């Protein structure tokens, strides 16, 4: 550190704060809503812990139930649609068979 830096250090000594600074700070502090100061080390009561766990389990159960119901509903609708398609195919098959037998009978009559 040279002479200039020593001068600078001397020049930059801390200035005293205004005499009423502290009282102004304390006055403003008093005007503010009182903070609820909780020591960092204080553990949360166990009851909150269990309440949180119970709430989490309930939410998880409701969600899982909802998902299961949705899956079953989709499966039921799918089976219903499949049955309807099979019925339609069966009816179409009968109609075609009937038409085929009529055509065959018509052909025989024409040959005779």
């Amino acid at each position, binding site marked *: 550190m040279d002479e*200039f*830096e020593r*001068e*600078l*250090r*001397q*020049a*930059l*000594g*801390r*200035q*005293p*704060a*205004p005499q009423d*600074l*502290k009282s*102004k*700070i*304390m006055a*403003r*502090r008093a005007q*503010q809503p*009182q*903070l609820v*100061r*909780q*020591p*960092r080390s204080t553990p949360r009561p166990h009851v909150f812990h269990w309440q949180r766990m119970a709430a989490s389990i309930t939410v998880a159960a409701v969600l899982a139930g909802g998902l299961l119901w949705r899956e079953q509903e989709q499966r039921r609708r799918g089976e219903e649609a499949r049955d309807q398609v099979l019925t339609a195919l069966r009816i179409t098959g009968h109609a075609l068979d009937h038409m085929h037998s009529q055509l065959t009978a018509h052909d025989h009559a024409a040959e005779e």
Partner: protein
Amino acid sequence: MVHDDQLDFEQLVDEHQAMVYSLALRMTGDHGLAEEIAQDVFLELDRNLSKIESADHACFWLRRVAMSRSTDALRRRQARRMEQWVEIEEGHGAKAESSSSPLASGLSSRLEQLLATLPEAQRAALLLRYQEDLTPEEIAAALGAPLATVKSHLQRGLKLLRAKAATHLHEYIR
């Protein structure tokens, strides 16, 4: 518990008010603004008192927040109007000189005035180095800046200040 907090808080104000006020004053050059910043910084400390782990932590926290609030205030003021700066600088210089009389104090106040003309980042680094006696590593932590940047600001700031002193303070500098 609240009473203990209050005692601790008051003790912190007693111990660190000069540091916080000086940092704000030398960063902004404005007594009124510096006082306002110091009040805000301590009220913020009060709100965060539960996070403060030790006396050293409180000191570090106060330095960091004081520098940050001062920088914010400077930027807000620069954005508002530039001409105010001239008035404030003149006022600051006049008051500083009035509080000191002999030759040595004259040099000190002139050095302070020259410091106020440095770019903001260089001024902040020099202030923490020569007012607070911090190492470059500690300055980097206080300003939240890379160490290389802080070293560069210190070197350039000191060089610029020497040059200004050589020009303006030749009657004092041998």
